[in-house]
Each structure stands twice: as structure tokens, then as C-alpha cells.
């Protein structure tokens, strides 16, 4: 688990604000942001433009985690999904505010800023995005 403070701090922009980027050559959107576009490679160098993602998307697939890592043990069972965002990229995140038996592939979801995990009961708390069903 990425527990080191600098390692977490470096990703704050992306994890707190869902900042991705867009290839200036083919318009493909990436999250997390990439140094170059895998489709355009050298054509995209210097043309990767920062954008904020809407945080809206739909569930492509999901699982219910029953055996979790130490930092997540208190949360089991909890759902994790791959979400396809409106802008194109797919990302992995927990689903909240949804009954487990109501989860389904194709469900529309939106991102929320939440606590993700904690280093023990007194340790650092790490934040980021989770997704909840769109009303």
C-alpha cells in the first residue's frame, strides 16, 4: 500500500480533483494524466493538455471484496468497480451509498470526495474519489 507521505502528496491533484489530461493530437483523454499519448507518442509530446474530469460515468464491471487488505478490513464487504467516465477513461474505485444487491453493470455513477484508507487507528488518513449512483 502506498503509505509514504510524499508518494501520496504527489497524486493529490489527480485524486482530489480528478485532473486528467487530453492529447492535443487525437483528443483522447487520460486519467491519471500521462506524459504522452500511447496512440500518438511523439506527436503528442508537449501537447498533453490538463483537464478536469466531470466525474460522471457508468459501471463496466464490479466485485464485492470480502477479504480486504489490512487498511480496508473494517469496511468488508465493500464493492469496487471499474467505471467508464464520460470523457472516455476507465478507472477503479469503490462504490458507496448503494445497496450491494442493487449494483449492476451499466449503472450511472458520479464521483465524491471521501476518505479512502487510514494507517492504523491513529495514523494518516488518505482521501480520494469514490463513486455513488446518480439519483
Amino acid at each position, binding site marked *: 500500500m502506498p503509505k509514504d507521505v510524499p508518494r501520496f502528496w504527489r*497524486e493529490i491533484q489527480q485524486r482530489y480533483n480528478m485532473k486528467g489530461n487530453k492529447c492535443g493530437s487525437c483528443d483522447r483523454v487520460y486519467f491519471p494524466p500521462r506524459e504522452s499519448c500511447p496512440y500518438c507518442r511523439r506527436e503528442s509530446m508537449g501537447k498533453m493538455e490538463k483537464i478536469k474530469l466531470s466525474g460522471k460515468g457508468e459501471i463496466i464491471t464490479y*466485485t464485492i471484496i470480502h477479504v480486504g*487488505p489490512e487498511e480496508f478490513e473494517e469496511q468488508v464487504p465493500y464493492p*469496487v468497480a471499474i467505471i467508464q467516465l464520460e470523457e472516455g477513461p476507465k478507472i*477503479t474505485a469503490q462504490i458507496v451509498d448503494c445497496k450491494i444487491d442493487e449494483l449492476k453493470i451499466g449503472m450511472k455513477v458520479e464521483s465524491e470526495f471521501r476518505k479512502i484508507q487510514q494507517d492504523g487507528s491513529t495514523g494518516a488518513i488518505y482521501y*480520494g474519489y469514490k463513486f455513488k449512483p446518480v439519483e
Partner: protein
Amino acid sequence: MRDVAVIGIGLTKFGELWDQSFRQLTAEAGSKAILDSGVGGKDIDAMYVGSMSSGRFVGQEHVGALVADASGFSHLHIPSTRVEGACASGSLALREGYLSIASGVNDVVVIGGIEKMNDVGGSAATETLATAADQEWEAFFGVTFPGLYAMIAKRHMHEFKTTREDLARVAVKNHHNGTMNPFAQYQKEISIDTALNATPVAEPLGLMDCSPVTDGAAAVVLCAADRIGDFSGKPVKIIGSGQASDTLSLHGRRDITTLDASVHAGKMAYKQAHLKPSDINLAEVHDCFTIAEICAIEDLGFVKKGEGGKAVENKITTIDGSLPVNTSGGLKSKGHPVGATGVAQIVEITKQLRGEADKRQIKDARIGLAHNVGGSGATCVVNILEGM
């Protein structure tokens, strides 16, 4: 490029081996393979060692040299290199050795694969396996390694109507095969109900959909085909070898239910061997989870995409089927000491092509394929072997 053959194989028992150390396991598998091949220490030009995470599992890095030392070769100063590609580390080591002979640099190479996973507790083992996934963009958000394969399974079920029974049948078949393999971690049958009612791990996967945590080592000796006459080991030729990579994260892939790295590595190996999927007599595929075997037989072209579940139901992949898969018991029943797995697959294929697989021998097996995956599909290696 020169032709290359496997001329020696060695395997330790797979399981929870509390009384054996990393060093003992590696020395046991290595010496068995070397004795089987008939080469002497002075004939060995190089060694390659596959280990995913000796640093986290036993607190020891630098295991290339350690393995050469433990095998008794320190005074011969044999070059020994450790290779890592998560659960595909063993086949990557094999392929590096293969390439070094094919290129003409080396004539005789020893390949070792090892993982000693039970010295740490279960949760530490799980956490270490998760390092094969994307730590920043997958694991951080709470997805586990079984969770990734569970999401592949869920999507496969959604798109192709694959069922939990199809998954369970993979486990039942591989446990059945494992009963005939004295090296396997589990040598007992399981019923489809046992598989279906097992404790959930990451839905839709339960405990019986998952390969176990295993200690074990495997080794093979590779030799330039034009020098096999110099040694007594019974040769099996490597006629095709492919390797491919893909995004580290599952969500980054083109398609959630296809491991494109498997497709590409497979095509590369088939092309070199001038063979089609239907020419393969048996295969050892990477069934770290039951769904992984279903995806593998599709991605390697044995059945069409989406028909993997049906193929298992129709018993195509059983030991008496038209394409026996995982005669060794696979990762599910034989066990999955991650760095050793790719090498152990080559050991099984070699035994089959030599006609030495005892009760699980496939009649007239001539061509076998081994398929080894790292992570959720970011690395894949496929090797095709032919009996001589």
C-alpha cells in the same frame, strides 16, 4: 537463430513447506534438473532465476547469485541473473535463457524458478501479490488481486452468460488432475458444490476459485539443439516462444475480458512454430483464478471468445478431452509459488512429451503449450514445445 531444447527438469514438492528454506528448495530443484540433464557444473554457461518478490516474502533480494551459490556453483563463478515479471517471472527467466542460447552466446543454461510464500502471514502474502497490480491507481482504492480477476469474471458473465458453475468446473477438473500429481499441493477431489459454496473472497469468486499460497521451486536445463548429443538428458525442443506486455492496470485495457498480452504472446509463438491452436495436443495455462483459465483458452485461440465456459462444461479440457488443459493440476491444485510457476509448467509439458507423466499421461502427446501471466495480464509468456 539456433534451436534450443529442454534437456533436464527438476521440481520440489509444492505446498506449505515449513521445514525447507528458500536455499534448500532452489538447490533441490536445480540439482534434480542438472542430474536429469547429464550436464556437469563446468558445462553451464549461465543461470537465470525467476522470483517475483523474494524481498517481501523472505526479506532477501539478490537471489540470482544466491541461487548459484546455494546450488554449489560459487567457485565456478557462473553468471546468474534474477528476472522479475510478477507471476510470470519463471517464464521470463526461461525466455531470457532461451534467447541467450538462440542468439549463440550460450550453449547450456540452467533456469530456476522459486517462491517461498508461507514464511509471511496470509495478509502479508496477499498484500505482496497485490504489488503485481497498479499500486497507485488500483490497490490504493481497495481492490485486491482476486478482486481484479473477479471483475474480469463479472464482465465475462455479463457479456457471455458464463456461470459460476462454469468457473467451479475448472476447479473441479484441476483438482481431479492434481490427484494424479505427487508434487501437487492438493491431491484430493473436490465436488462442484464444494466449489460453489466456498467462502466468498471477491464476488463472484470464492476460495475454490483461487490458487493457494505455495512454497516451491522448479528448474530446467536448456541446451543448444546442436549440442544435445553431448549430454544424456532426454530432449524436448522449444519450437516457439512469445512474450507481450499491456497496461499494468486492468482498467487501462482495451477489453476487460481479453488479455491482449496473451493474444499477442500466443500469436508470436504460433508464428515461430508454424502452428495453429488446433495443432496443440495439451496446454498448461495460467489458472491463478478459475476465470483466468476460461480467458486463457479463448485468448490462445483454442475456442472462440466467450465460449470458454461452454468448453469446460463440454469437457473439452479434461484429461480425456480433445485439448487437455492443466494436466498437472494447474496453479489451482498443484499450487502457485509465483516465481516457480512458469518453470513448473515447462516441467509438466516436458514430462508429457517425454511420456513420463504416469497416470495423467496424454496418449501420443507431441506438441504442448505453456502460458504464464503476470499480474492481471500486463505480462504474458507463451512457449510451445515439441517432443523429439
